[in-house]
């Protein structure tokens, strides 16, 4: 046993390593990225040859993890919450196929949208798939839940969803580790048709899943991660989920007077909820995320006997992540605030790094677009989304990974000229290639910019599947090479870039322009390493 100082994400990776995992699969996305980054730096992972390369997107990650599970070994797929939308097809169907080796899908939600387009709650997906969900309240539980989750997954032959949120992902604490379990051997599923979801087989599998729900819930009732904590004051009972427990306890340093049901393992146990509410007529529900448990308990017709407080009646904010102050207010506890917020402080929005190629690309695009007017540029997810802000004000959409190309196509089909798409290299190989194929097939009049910085920049410069492949991919998809240009986004190429862009904007067909220059962050890091090697 060892005590390590780990981020929640790192605790998950270490927990998986110690639980005998054979494969990490995932796509970078805040706040989930550090799980695989930690694994990639782990000497044990290297020594044992555990798979930990990035996948092209969350769907390919989920499917590869399922494949490893098919072969009898333990695997996890990691992603941010919106990544689960991309992987949803594989995810939902994996609950029908079931698994062979233990499979945990780790999804990091981002309440308050610190780095995301929405704050969707992945527990809905777990419920939708009818599989067990684990939600740790701290870094130690995150670690412990990996071994527990693999065992649970193998016991029920089902994938397990592990849901974490930003604060746990990106907060460090001491974690006690256990001895390493050995990796599982390669063993094929007992039933050779288990993974064949032909309707006739799927129906049987699905009925099995439905019939197993009572047993799965019994596991929750007996779970070490669901705890009914007695209290002295029965005027109210409290349910907390995940890290919300911490905000409750923060307000009661000498112990909470009310009985508390601390939930970390779903499906929600009816038995535990009934036990908690037996002696009380008021229930407060504190959840980090959507009011899922609250809606389940309130039901449609409500409870005559039970007064329920939570996010839905305004006791807690309806949206955003919780904090100790929100919970204090709901509990009627006053925190003495001696200092007011400053009146002179102004916002400091994120900005592109000095010298970033995106800056010079946007300068050229804005100049070329000037005579065409605003409102015609569809962009995507990445650092270049900051092009929406001043001083560029250059883009008009950011919806989901890959949507730039397809939205631009739809707008072009509607008659918009010029119609422009801006997408990064990694986002392009994540979900942009199929959209580009649609445009190639119809030679849609639009101009696609693939900003190739040869990295997944926004999340910290991970290896991009697109690196050194964009030219070949575009050629392979059938892009007309007469209208394919690679440019260098630097100040001295400004005039050349503007000329090429202007020419292609007026072309009544599909053009692809690739501004290519390495991310300044990865470049600086690479040079620093090189310098060190030279010095040594």
């Amino acid at each position, binding site marked *: 046993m060892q*005590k390590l*100082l780990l*981020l929640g994400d790192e605790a998950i990776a270490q927990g998986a390593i110690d639980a005998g995992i054979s494969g990490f699969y995932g796509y970078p996305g*805040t*706040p989930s*990225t*550090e799980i695989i980054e930690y694994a990639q730096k782990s000497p044990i992972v290297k020594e044992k040859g555990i798979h930990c390369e990035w996948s092209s997107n969350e769907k390919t990650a989920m499917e590869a993890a399922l494949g490893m599970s098919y072969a009898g070994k333990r695997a996890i797929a990691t992603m941010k919450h919106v990544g689960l939308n991309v992987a949803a097809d594989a995810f939902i169907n994996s609950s029908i196929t079931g698994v062979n080796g233990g499979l945990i899908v780790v999804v990091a939600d981002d309440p308050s949208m*610190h*780095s995301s387009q929405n704050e969707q709650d992945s527990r809905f997906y777990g419920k939708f798939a009818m599989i067990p969900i684990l939600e740790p309240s701290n870094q130690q539980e995150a670690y412990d839940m990996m071994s527990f989750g693999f065992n649970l997954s193998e016991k029920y032959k089902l994938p397990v969803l592990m849901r974490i949120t930003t*604060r*746990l992902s*990106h*907060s*460090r*604490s*001491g974690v006690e580790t256990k001895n390493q379990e050995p990796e599982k051997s390669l063993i094929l599923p007992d039933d050779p048709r288990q993974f064949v979801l032909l309707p006739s087989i799927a129906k049987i599998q699905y009925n099995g899943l439905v019939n197993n729900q009572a047993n799965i819930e019994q596991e929750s009732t007996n779970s070490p991660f669901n705890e009914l904590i007695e209290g002295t004051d029965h005027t109210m009972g409290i349910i907390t989920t995940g*890290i919300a*427990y*911490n*905000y409750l*306890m*923060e307000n009661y340093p000498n112990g909470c007077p009310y009985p508390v049901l601390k939930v970390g393992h779903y499906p929600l146990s009816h038995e535990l909820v009934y036990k908690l509410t037996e002696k009380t007529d008021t229930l407060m529900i504190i959840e980090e995320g959507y009011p899922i448990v609250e809606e389940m308990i309130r039901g449609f017709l409500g409870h005559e006997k039970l007064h329920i407080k939570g996010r839905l009646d305004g006791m807690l904010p309806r949206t955003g992540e919780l*904090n*100790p*102050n929100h919970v*204090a207010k709901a509990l009627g506890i006053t*925190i*003495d*605030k*001696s*200092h*007011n*917020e*400053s009146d*002179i*402080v*102004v*916002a*400091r*929005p*994120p*900005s*592109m*790094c000095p010298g970033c190629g995106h800056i010079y690309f946007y300068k050229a695009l804005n100049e070329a677009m000037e005579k065409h007017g605003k409102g015609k540029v569809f962009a995507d997810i990445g*650092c270049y989304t*900051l092009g929406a802000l001043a001083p560029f004000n250059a883009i008009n959409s950011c919806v989901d990974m890959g949507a730039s190309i397809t939205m631009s196509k739809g707008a072009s089909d509607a008659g918009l000229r010029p119609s422009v798409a801006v997408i990064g290299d990694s986002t392009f190989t994540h979900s942009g290639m199929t959209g580009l194929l649609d445009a190639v097939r119809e030679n849609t009049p639009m101009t696609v910019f693939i900003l190739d910085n040869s990295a997944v920049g*926004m*999340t*910290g410069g991970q290896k991009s599947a697109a690196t050194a492949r964009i030219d070949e991919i575009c050629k392979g998809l059938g892009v007309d090479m007469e209208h394919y240009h690679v440019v260098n986004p630097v100040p001295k190429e400004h005039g050349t870039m503007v000329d090429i862009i202007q020419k292609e904007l007026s072309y009544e067909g599909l053009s692809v322009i690739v501004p290519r220059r390495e991310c300044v962050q990865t470049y600086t890091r690479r040079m620093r390493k090189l310098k060190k090697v030279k010095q040594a």
Partner: protein
Amino acid sequence: MKADIILTGVGGQGILSIAAIVSISALNKGLYIKQSEVHGMSQRGGDVQSNLRLSDKPIYSDLIAEGSADLVLSLEPIEALRYKHFLKKDGWLITNSKPYKNISNYPDENSWRAEIETFPNHVLIDAEKIAKEVGSVLSANVVLAGAASPYLGLTYEDLENGIREIFGKKGEAVINLNLEALRRGREFADKELVK
């Protein structure tokens, strides 16, 4: 023992290295720690903060409640003010005095200085100037840690050991430079206290 510290600055200034030094020092002492960080989009030149909590008892929340922080430690003056309402009544506001001006509407110097000076417990320190004198502008964050060292709930020796551990791989010269940066920061804070 309990110390709730908000570390703040602009993305890239190095608040996380301060957090690392303090955390490792606390861990070696057997204290409980929670340290939350900001990763992702807002890192790029935006305002960043880290909530660092040390205690001899288990810590629940990863976030510090408004009105309860013992210390706001900032690498940038207006970033210090951004979090001043998190401080408890007699909490300390310790900040680098050099503005990081990557925004056009940066408040004028008189107004931010005046607001910082309303705090009875404040230290305004030109950490970069001292760091340059020590030998590397990169040690500004360690100078700042030195200035905050009386209020971190750790002994000065704990921090020195933390520095030795964090910079261990970089060799004796780097360790000594940072130890000197820590000492100069502390010296400055001690002088301010006498004033």
